[in-house]
């Protein structure tokens, strides 16, 4: 069963001359952990706001948990959980006050659904009397997640929940999402971090209001068209310039420790030649190896098409 169906959604902001969403089509299965991956300005938040009935699309239609986002907006507001990208709880209320406020707003109580948030709430319970504004970034996100979950929503929308959160808390956060998935909640999460894409069941890569690809992370990675090589020498900056000057190389991108390249006609011979050329350019400790593409490689490749 499809829990979310997005068909031909377009949205522009004429005042800012931005086409935020351009003909978006997505389907999300019930109980799926679905990721929207893309940089800032890709249109992730706009799509979330349309799906949570906060914005009206210019054209196209969307159905969330069987309800139309325009006609049945009231029904959707009862059964979805939404965590905006910006921390939006009341900073001057304590952790516990925030939670019980949102529980009551949704006609429920902390007690009623405590089992759902127990694992998450335990992390912040020692600070339950602290004002939300005084919590650390990771704690704030956990509290916000608790508040979004307290009414046991059918669909959970998480807009960049891990942005600005430390690595340990990010990992914890994703573990929590996996556990929530087991409760049967459909989760849509957006993130600008490509490495988090692997933690989703299926992902949509977004860029400038368009969807580049929708599939499982494995499938997206395996559909990378060319063999990919990582290359490293002692002079990485000079290497980048030199690689770009070589006509046999199809693409070069800097990836931290290594540069990732693809070749026009990949073969053992070509690699040997490349090695030779770099040696002639006075590069030392040349290290070239074949690697499996990551989501980021795929994203860049799709983007440049």
């Amino acid at each position, binding site marked *: 069963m499809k829990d979310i169906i997005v068909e031909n959604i377009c949205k522009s902001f004429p005042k800012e001359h931005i086409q935020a969403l351009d003909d978006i089509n997505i389907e999300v299965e019930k109980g799926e952990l679905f990721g929207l991956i893309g940089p800032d300005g890709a249109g992730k938040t706009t799509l979330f706001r349309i799906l949570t009935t906060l914005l009206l699309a210019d054209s196209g239609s969307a159905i969330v948990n069987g309800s139309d986002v325009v006609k049945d907006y009231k029904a959707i507001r009862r059964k979805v959980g939404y965590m905006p990208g910006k921390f*939006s709880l009341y900073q*001057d209320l304590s952790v516990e006050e925030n939670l*019980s406020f949102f529980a009551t707003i949704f006609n429920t109580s902390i007690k009623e659904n405590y089992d759902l948030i127990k694992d998450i709430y335990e992390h912040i319970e020692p600070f339950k009397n602290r004002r939300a504004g005084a919590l650390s970034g990771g704690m704030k996100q956990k509290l916000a997640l608790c508040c979004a979950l307290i009414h046991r929503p059918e669909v959970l929308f998480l807009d960049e929940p891990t942005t600005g959160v430390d690595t340990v808390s990010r990992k914890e956060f994703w573990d929590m999402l996996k556990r929530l998935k087991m409760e049967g909640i459909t989760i849509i999460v957006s993130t600008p971090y490509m490495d988090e894409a692997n933690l989703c069941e299926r992902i949509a890569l977004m860029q400038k209001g368009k969807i580049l690809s929708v599939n499982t992370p494995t499938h997206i990675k395996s559909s990378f068209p060319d063999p990919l090589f990582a290359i490293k020498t002692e002079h990485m900056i000079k290497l980048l310039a030199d690689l770009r000057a070589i006509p046999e190389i199809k693409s070069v991108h800097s990836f931290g420790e290594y540069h990732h390249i693809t070749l026009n006609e990949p073969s053992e011979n070509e690699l040997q030649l490349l090695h030779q050329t770099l040696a002639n350019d006075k590069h030392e400790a040349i290290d070239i190896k074949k690697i499996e593409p990551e989501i980021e490689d795929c994203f860049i490749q799709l983007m440049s098409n």
Partner: protein
Amino acid sequence: MKQFMIFVKKEFKHVFRDSKTLLMLFGLPIVQIVLFGFALSNEIKSADVLICDHANNNYSHEIIHKISASKSFEVKRVTTDHSEIEEAFKQGSAKIAIVIPSDIEDQIFHSTHGSLQVISDASDPNTASTLTSYISNIIMDYKQTLNAGNSPPMQVVPEIRMLYNPTLKGATNFVPGVISLVLLLVCVLMTSVSIVKEKESGSMEILLVSPMNPFTVIISKAVPYFFLSLINLTVILIMSVVLLDMPLNGSIFLLYFESSILILCALSLGLLISNSTDSQQAAMLISLMGMLIPTMLLTGFLFPLENMPLPLQYFANILPSKWYFIIVKSIMIKGLGISAIYKETLILIGMTVLLLFISIRKFKIRLS
């Protein structure tokens, strides 16, 4: 109902946990009452008087004594040099000068009318005319005590009674004005900021994606400020009765009832402003500029409305404070009941209903 209660509780917490809001809510009214009650009054206290006494006898001394005994005057100097008068006016060391002729005694007893010169600095016309009328009163009074024994021939003396405010105290006019100003300002400002704050912080996004209906949000926003404003009103009333000797002749229940209507009216206006703006600054600016200036100028407590050009008089009719000002004066000073002010009351109720209706209609169920 539970939703409503927790929302109201939350609003109270916002208010009590923010010292700035608290200060604005309770500091502002106190400062305004003190300012308007004591500092900014058109009563004249201790105006400097220069007396040029050419007579220097019992009668002139008596007159000088009477003047200096009045709270309105302070006799700066008694001189015999006429030229000092102009000098004093130029320096601004005297507001009014009195010249007592050398034959004052003769004039009083042997002529039908005696005269005494009063010179006033009319660069401020209001003060000048008020001071000269005070002086004339004192002289008239003195004349009557002199004539007490023998009845003078044929005289028409106007018997003046200043109804409701016999001592012409400024506070009597200002306090009702200040009450309406403070209630209006505080309510409009507080409520307009409170909704916009939720928009700015993003919590409005979460509230919208919840089963709460807009009506509940609006009403629960208004309730805390309604009660806080009633407390405010009580503080203002106590201060004005205790500190400023304001009379409270009418029914206190009626006063609270009418004030509740004004508060509701102001709250609705505040909600309307907050539904139409996106930032706290904009909301504050509109509330301050849009409320403070028209309320101050066109309510009638600083400048009489009757003296204004017709368009301004018509415009004043849409200000709730104008009607409330009339109501408060009628209740507190004249001690009138509801039958005398039902028209003003109905106008206020009408305004409130209209504003509340518009602000609920304007409440956005989506972003932008």
